[in-house]
């Protein structure tokens, strides 16, 4: 109390003793900014730095600036047909797996949302594939599609070498990915479903809307933000797909993805500059795709937010 009196009597002193609101905010934000700089900004800048240089594989410690404007690694990467093949494969993989995951995930979410006995059990069971390590998933699917004694060939009765032919190998990878991550999609969509107030449906029912109409006119529009978030997350993830093709085919038969190219160049061949350039190009691809999402679907959400 006494202190307060002193302070109010001498406002100038108070400022010098304590911190102004701005100063306080600055110091409170600093630790997290430093942390972000350390764990996010530094590696990103470092990766860009690496991509602008060439590091000799054959001579110890020899490195040089990568040609005109430091962009030689990028021109090499963009001029490499392997990169474009990988880009194509990655986009096909992403489009088909994310689409299937959305459809299946939505169906799963609707099923989980419905009130019935054993709802808790269903929600748990559905999540099991998501909880399994991707590498384990890959090995499991490898066994299932093995030729000639694998489970699928036993049932279908063919002798297709699934992982040894194009495009079958990519299809197996898509199936494995959908199996594993549709539950994740379902979970995100379920969260969206649960915040839609029940009385809207009541009102619609009273007005005589059919189940399909209720789904089309209420559920889907109100779900769009949740679906968009889920889509973005899954798309980002899918564009970086690495573990499934690495374990299932090691990139053979048209399954080489962007991350596989980057990893092989960087870690296996230790061509650090070019490898980093591949990573950055992958990152740029991811960014372009993501912003396209925001532009195309974003307007929809803005409309909703204004309501």
């Amino acid at each position, binding site marked *: 109390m006494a202190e307060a009196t002193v302070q109010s009597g001498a406002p100038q002193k108070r400022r010098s003793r304590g911190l102004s609101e701005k100063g306080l905010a600055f110091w409170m934000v600093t630790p997290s900014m430093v942390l972000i700089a350390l764990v996010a900004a530094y*590696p990103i800048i470092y990766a860009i730095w690496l991509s602008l*240089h060439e590091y000799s*594989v054959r001579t110890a410690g020899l490195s040089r600036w990568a040609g005109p404007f430091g962009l030689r690694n990028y021109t090499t990467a963009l001029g490499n047909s392997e990169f474009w093949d990988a880009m194509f494969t990655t986009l096909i993989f992403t489009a088909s797996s994310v689409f299937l995951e959305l459809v299946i995930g939505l169906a799963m979410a609707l099923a989980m949302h419905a009130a019935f006995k054993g709802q808790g059990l269903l929600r748990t069971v559905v999540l099991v594939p998501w909880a399994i390590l991707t590498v384990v998933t890959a090995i499991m699917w490898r066994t299932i599609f093995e030729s000639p004694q694998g489970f699928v060939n036993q049932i279908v009765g063919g002798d297709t070498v699934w992982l*040894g032919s194009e495009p079958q190998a990519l299809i197996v990878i898509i199936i494995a990915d959908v199996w594993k991550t549709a539950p994740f999609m379902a979970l995100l969509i379920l969260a969206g479903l649960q915040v839609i107030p029940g009385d809207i449906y009541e009102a619609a029912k009273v007005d005589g809307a059919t189940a399909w109409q209720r789904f089309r006119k209420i559920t889907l529009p109100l779900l769009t933000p949740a679906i*968009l978030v889920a889509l973005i997350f899954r798309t980002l993830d899918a564009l970086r797909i690495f573990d499934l093709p690495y374990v299932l085919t090691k990139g053979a038969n048209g399954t080489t993805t962007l991350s596989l190219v980057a990893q092989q160049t960087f870690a296996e061949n230790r061509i650090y500059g070019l490898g980093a350039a591949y990573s950055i190009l992958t990152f740029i691809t991811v960014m372009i795709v993501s912003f396209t999402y925001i532009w195309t679907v974003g307007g929809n959400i*803005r409309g909703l937010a204004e309501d």
Partner: protein
Amino acid sequence: MTKRLILMLCAALLCGVFVAACGGDDSGGGGGGGGGGSSESGATEGAKVIDPSLAENAKGEVTYCQGKDTSGNAHYMIEQFNKKYGPDLKAKLVEFPASADEQRNQFIQRQQAKSGDCDVFSSDVIWTAEFASQKWLYDMTPYMKDKKDQYIEAPVETVTYDGKIWGVPESSDAGLLYYNTDKVKSIPSTWQEVYSQAEKKGGIVYQGAAYEGLTCDFLELFFGAGGEVLSKDGTKSTFADGDAGVKALSFMVDGVKNGAAPKAVTTYMEPESLTAFQTGKYAYMRNWPYAYALNKKAAKVKGNFDVGPQPTFEGGEKAGILGGHNSVISVYSKNPGGALKLIEHIGSPEIQKAYAAQFSLSPVRADVYDDPDVQKAIPFANALRDGITQARARPVSPVYPQISQAIYKNVNAALSGQTSPEDAIKQANADIEKALQTF
């Protein structure tokens, strides 16, 4: 809402780059870490040379790094060492992960950090050139000069690069041919006969997936047909010179086409080929010596299989591909004398014999195979010695990973029918040429 979404998006994107950059970070630090001063001349010029007399009064501690000691041989070897030289000179074991790629990463990271963690490292035979050209290893030529003759020639070839010897063979490995004695009585003298028998009697399985194993399997036929991957000085690709490449590859492709090998072989690595052979349906399997003990436990083949060295490629010679490990000394070792002592110990007849008799490792000294205990412990000792003696090292080059990729990617594409053998060899040759141009 939009704002929050954009924020989330940014966060997610950051995660993305973070992962990408992290991958970049884990071994990138040392890419240019060596100081950047050295000139681009002779790949191993100026490397530290070992002084063999250092071993004489060696004292202190020495660390031996290798992959996971699954069979316990390293523990045994260290124990014997400490009994013999302790307490003045003591050895310690550091185990790396079981996967070969991880072992390589672990060692590279330590060398890039100039850490003396590993005095001696058990290096896979294919890493020598890479490590040597990065000047991470002692030049062991003075030490090996008068000892070379104690070893089988092929393993020594794997530690020889740029005219110098960079390590000491530790244990060996070579591709062998297993056969089902219910289907064939013995291995015929040529690969061509093996395949024509296989076609009628159940088939042959090998490692045909796109990975290192296929490089080995292909090179065995390629070397047999008289091919060479690199010119003598290692600067040019000779992969497409002559017709060895097309001959060996067409032979393999025809094998898959006419059913001598199952179509699925293009997805097989070692475990899959082993599983297939153990069903008892196949006549032949190309695999490493480790498969012997496992076949002995497999119900359908344990009593009716045998193994031998690989046959001749018609009109060519016998070959095989060499695996195994070499002991190398890190230039950052603080105790090179102790390290030498340890290497001497690993190469000694006693340890080599124990490695073979107790731990089923293939010895690198020819005389060890004749030892009665070894003959008893490894019933196929003679086949193994012949297999190793006739085997060849894979190309010794600092860009070996890229050379191997050039081979296995194109060979696999031909095996699965996506390209013709001629085009595959041409493409592989171009890829190897490109790999050799790497800065």
